[in-house]
C-alpha cells in the first residue's frame, strides 16, 4: 500500500501556491494535515499528479480573536484549536474531542476537514450550526463562502480547484447562549453515525435564535431551518423540543450504509436533536457548565 508516484511542491508564498493550483487544476491535491488525503494516497484511491503541500506556507497558523468571531488560519491543527477552545469556546472543544484521536488531531487541520466535506464529520456540522464561513483565495482574488453554500454533496464543496481556504471564521455564541453537541459513533473516535449540534438563547423565558445542525444523515450537514422556525419564540418545553425534532427528522433524507440504516439515522437524529437542544436549553438557563 504505497502511494502512486506524484510530483511534490511545498510552496512558501501564497502566490506560488495559487499559481500551482491554477496551473494544475484537477490534477493537483492540496496537502494540509494529510489525515484524509494520505490514506487515500496509500490506498491509491487518490492519484493526483501533483501534491501541493501547504504546510510550509507562512501566515496561516494563527487563531485570531475578533469581537464576534474567531478566525482560524488554514494551518491551525485541530488539536491546537481544541486546547485553545477549552478556555473560551466550550462548544468548539466539545466538538473537536470527537474528531478522530489525539494523534490525528495533532496533524489534522480545521480548514482541511471542512474542505474534505465528509457529511459525518464534526467540523462541517459545527460550521453550519454556527453560520460560519471560510475565506477562499485564488489568483482571481478572495471570497467568503458561507457554510450553507460551502457544502454541496458527499465529499464535495463549492470550492474551485484553483481555490485555497486560507481562513475559517467561526462566530462566537451570544452571551448567555447555551449549546449542545452530541453524536453516536460505532467506536470512540469514529465518524459519527449521526450527530447533532444545537445552540439556543432564551429571551423572556422563550427560545430565541435557535440553530441546529444534524450530521451523518444526508449528503451534507443539514441545517434544521424549519424546526428552528417552529422553536423560535416557544417556551423551552420538552414538548416543543420534541415537536421540532420530529419535524427535522421527517425532513431528512439519510442513506443506509454498512454501519447504519437510513431509518436508524432518521430516528437517532431526532433523539440526538432532542438531547442536544435539552443540553443547550439547560446551559442557556445557566444550569449547565
Amino acid at each position, binding site marked *: 500500500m*504505497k502511494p502512486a508516484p506524484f510530483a511534490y511542491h511545498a510552496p512558501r508564498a501564497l502566490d506560488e501556491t495559487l499559481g500551482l493550483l491554477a496551473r494544475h487544476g484537477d490534477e493537483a491535491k492540496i496537502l494540509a494535515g494529510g489525515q484524509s488525503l494520505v490514506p487515500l494516497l496509500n490506498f491509491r484511491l487518490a492519484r493526483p499528479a501533483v501534491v501541493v503541500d501547504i504546510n510550509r506556507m507562512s501566515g496561516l497558523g494563527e487563531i485570531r480573536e475578533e469581537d464576534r468571531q474567531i478566525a482560524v488560519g488554514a494551518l491551525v491543527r485541530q488539536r491546537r484549536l481544541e486546547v485553545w477552545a477549552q478556555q473560551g469556546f466550550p462548544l468548539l472543544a466539545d466538538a473537536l474531542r470527537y474528531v478522530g484521536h489525539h494523534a490525528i488531531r495533532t496533524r489534522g487541520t480545521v480548514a482541511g476537514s471542512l474542505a474534505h466535506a465528509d457529511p459525518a464529520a464534526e467540523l462541517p456540522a459545527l460550521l453550519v450550526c454556527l453560520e460560519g464561513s471560510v475565506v477562499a483565495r485564488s489568483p482571481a482574488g478572495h471570497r467568503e463562502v458561507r457554510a450553507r453554500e460551502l457544502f454541496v454533496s458527499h465529499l464535495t464543496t463549492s470550492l474551485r480547484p484553483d481555490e485555497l481556504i486560507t481562513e475559517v471564521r467561526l462566530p462566537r455564541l451570544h452571551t448567555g447562549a447555551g449549546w449542545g453537541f452530541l453524536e453516536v459513533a460505532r467506536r*470512540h473516535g469514529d465518524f459519527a453515525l449521526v450527530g447533532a449540534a444545537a445552540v439556543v438563547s432564551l429571551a423572556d423565558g422563550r427560545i430565541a435564535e435557535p440553530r441546529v445542525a444534524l450530521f451523518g444523515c444526508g449528503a451534507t450537514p443539514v441545517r434544521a431551518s424549519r424546526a428552528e422556525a417552529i422553536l423560535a419564540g416557544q417556551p423551552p418545553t420538552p414538548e416543543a423540543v420534541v415537536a421540532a425534532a420530529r419535524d427535522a427528522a421527517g425532513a431528512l433524507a439519510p442513506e443506509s450504509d*454498512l*454501519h*447504519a440504516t437510513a*431509518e*436508524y439515522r432518521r*430516528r437517532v437524529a431526532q*433523539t440526538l436533536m432532542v438531547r442536544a437542544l435539552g443540553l443547550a436549553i439547560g446551559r442557556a438557563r445557566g444550569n449547565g457548565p
Partner: protein
Amino acid sequence: MGARYVGAAVARVEDPRYLRGEARYVDDIKLPGLLHAAFLRSPHAHARFRGVDTARAAAMPGVVRVFTFADLEPFLKPLPVFGAPPPGLAERIRFTIRPTVQYALGPGIARYAGEIVAMVVADSRARAEDAAEALEVEWEPLPAVVEMVAAARPESPRLYPDWPDNVAVGFTHAIGDADAAFGAADVVLEERFRIQRYVGMPIEPRGVVAAFDRRDGTLTTWNSTQVPHFVQQGLATALGLPPGRIRVVAPDVGGGFGTKAAGYPEDALIPIAALALGRPVKWSEDRREHMMAAAHARHQVHEIALAARRDGVILAVRDHIWLDLGAYSGWGIVLPYNTVAHLLGPYRIRNLQVEVAAVVTNKTPSAPYRGAGRPETVFAMDRAVDCLARRIGLDPAEIRRRNYLGADELPWDLGMPYRDGNPLVYDSGDFRSALEAALAAAGYAEFRGAQKRLRERGIYQGIGISGYVEGTGIGPFEGATVRLDLAGRVSVATGAASAGQGHETTFAQVAADALGVPLDWVTVVGGDTAAVAFGVGTFASRSAVNAGSSVHEAATAVRAKLVRAAARLLEAAPEDLTIEDGRVSVRGAPGSAVALAQVIQASLPTFARAGVAAPDFEATACHHVPTVTWASAVHVVRLQVDPETGVVTLLRYVVAHDCGKVINPRIVDGQVHGGVAQGIGGALYEELVYDEHGQLLTGSLMDYLVPTAMEVPPIETVHLEYPSPRNPLGVKGLGEGGAISPPAAIANAIEDALEPWGVRVTETPVSPARLLALIGSRRTA
C-alpha cells in the same frame, strides 16, 4: 525439585526487546540485494481469466520479474489441506468430504476477490505495486455465490461444477434418543441464530522473506506464522527439497489468533521467487491484502431446538448447522466437528441430534480463529437456553444451576468421540461452582434488585451469563529439545512458535523447575525449524499442554543425565542427589554442592582422564497426550442499553475459569483479557461484510471495527484450578477461551436489559442500528 517458578507471576523475559523497539518481525528483516514482491489479486469474486499480459509491467522501472501461472507451473502443487477424520471418528460418523484443490497462483480461475493472479518482483515495494497495476488481464466473470444458506441448496450456482451442490463437508450425528426426548418434553423451544464472519485481525499483517543459498543448497524463509513446521512441510512438497534443506523461522510475530496458522499461497510463492531469481525476496502483506486474502472465520447459522421439562431441565438438543467456508475447504472436519463437539458444553444433556453442512462460497477462505467453532456453537446454545428460561419463567442463572454439571459428575462421558478420535470425556472441573463463583464476583443477586430500581428511572441495565467447556491441547504432539552448554545454561527449543503468548517465559518456568536452575539461565527459542527437528505449531490452545509437557519431559531427562554424572563426580547414589539453584548436592549435605558447570566439565575428557559420564546433556521429547484436556469458564457481563439510540455500554465483565494448573497467573490473565476483548468485538462491532457480488465492503480498519480501550470494560478474573490428569504438568489450554463466551453473554445481557419489551437478539454483531430496529418493533407492538 520444587515448583519455584511454575505458578508464580514472573515478569516476562521477552519484554525488554519489545519495549525498546528492538524486536524483529518479518518486515524488519533486511538482506543484501533484497527484492520486494507485490501481487495482482482478482477483483472479481468468481471469474475465469485468460492470459495475463505482462509486457507493460515488465518494462517498468525497477521491475525484475513478473510471474504468472505459466511461469511457475512446475512448482505449483495444490496447497496442503488438513482435517481428515481420524480413526475413532471416521468409524463413528459418516462424513461427506469433497476436497477442493487450491493453487498458490490461480490457473485461469479466481474463486474469491483477493485470490492471487500474478506476482511482481521489483527493487522496491512501491515499484512492485506500480507494475502490478499495469498488468492486463482478460476477465470472464461468473455468477458469484455469496449467501451461505442459499448456496447450500441444490439449485444454487456451484463453485465446483462436478459437485452436486456447494456442500464441502456434510454429516449427521446423534447421541441418545433425541426424538423420544422431544416427544416427552413439556416445552420445545426453536430459534434461528446467525453468527457473522469476523476474524483475528492481528495488528502485524502477514509477511514472508526468503533467501536461497546456492553454496549449501538451503532455503531459509522467515514467515510471520504460528506453524513453522507446517510451512516447512509444505515447502518440502512444493520444492522437492528434503526438510533439512529448508529452514523456516517465525521471528517475533505480531499476533496470530489462528489467522497465521493456515497455509498460504504466499508461503510458497516468495520462496519460489527467491529460488528463481537467486536473490532474497520479501513480501509484507498490507492491511488491504490482509482484509481480503488472509483467512476469514466464524459465520454460522444454527436452527436449534431444545426439549425441556417444565422445571427447566433440558432433555435434548437438535441443531441444523451451516458453516461458511469461503472458496476453498482446507480444514476438513475441523470447524464443523468442533462446532458439534462443543454444543452441549457444561450442560447435563444426554440426547443430541445434529445435521451439519459446511458450504463453499465465493468469499475469502475461512480457517480456525480463536475458538474455532466454539464461540458460534456456544452462542446458539446459550442464547437458546436464555430463551427457554424466559419462556418458562426461570432466571437465566437458575436454569443453569439446574442443568450444569458439578464436580461430583466428572469425569463426564458424552458418549461420542472428540475430534482426535478419542472418547469425549471431560477430565476435571466443576461447572456449577464456576457458575456460582462468577455470579458472586459479578454481584448477580444484588444486581437483580438494582436493575428494577434503575428501570423505574428509565435506565436499562442487563446481566448475561455464558459458559463453555473447551477441548484444549489437542495432539498429536509438540517437539521440544533441551540442551545445556558448558556453563550449565539451558537452551530450550520448541516448535510452538510464540505470537505474543509469552512462551519464552512460561516454558523457561517449566524448564527451570524441572532442572533446578535459576529462571534466567534458560533461553527459549520457538519457531525455528533448525532448532528442533519435529514440531507442529501454536494453535488450538495447545502449547502449554503439548509443548509444556515436552519441555518438562525433555528437561527431566536432562536432569537425570546431570544426576547420573554428578553421582559419579560426587561418589554418591543418584537418588541422594538434589539440584537446586543450579547446584548439585547430596541431600542434607549442602557443603557437597557443586555447580552444574563443574558436572558438565567433569564429563569432558582431559589429557589426564576420561570424563565421569557421557557428555550428553541434551534431550528431545515429543510428549504424547492421551487426548484433549477440558478447560471451562463462566462469563458474566453487566451492561447498559440506551433504548433511544441502540448503543450498548459494557460496565463490568467477570470470568471464572479453569485452565488446570496455572503456570503464570499474570500471563493467564492477559490471555483471558485479550480473548474477551476479541469476543466483545464479535458481539458488538466486528463483521466482514460482502455485497451480493462477493465484494468485500469492509476492506479497511475504518470499516472493520476492532474495539478500542473505550469499548472494552474492566475485566475481572477468578482462577479455579482443577488440574488435568492428562499431562504431567496438570495444565489445560487457555489461549482461545476468553473469546468463546462474550457474544453469547453480551447478547443475553442485552435481552435481559430489554426484558420488558421481549426483544430477541438472534444475530451478531449487535450494532446500534440492529438493536434499535429490534427495540422499535417491540416497543410499538
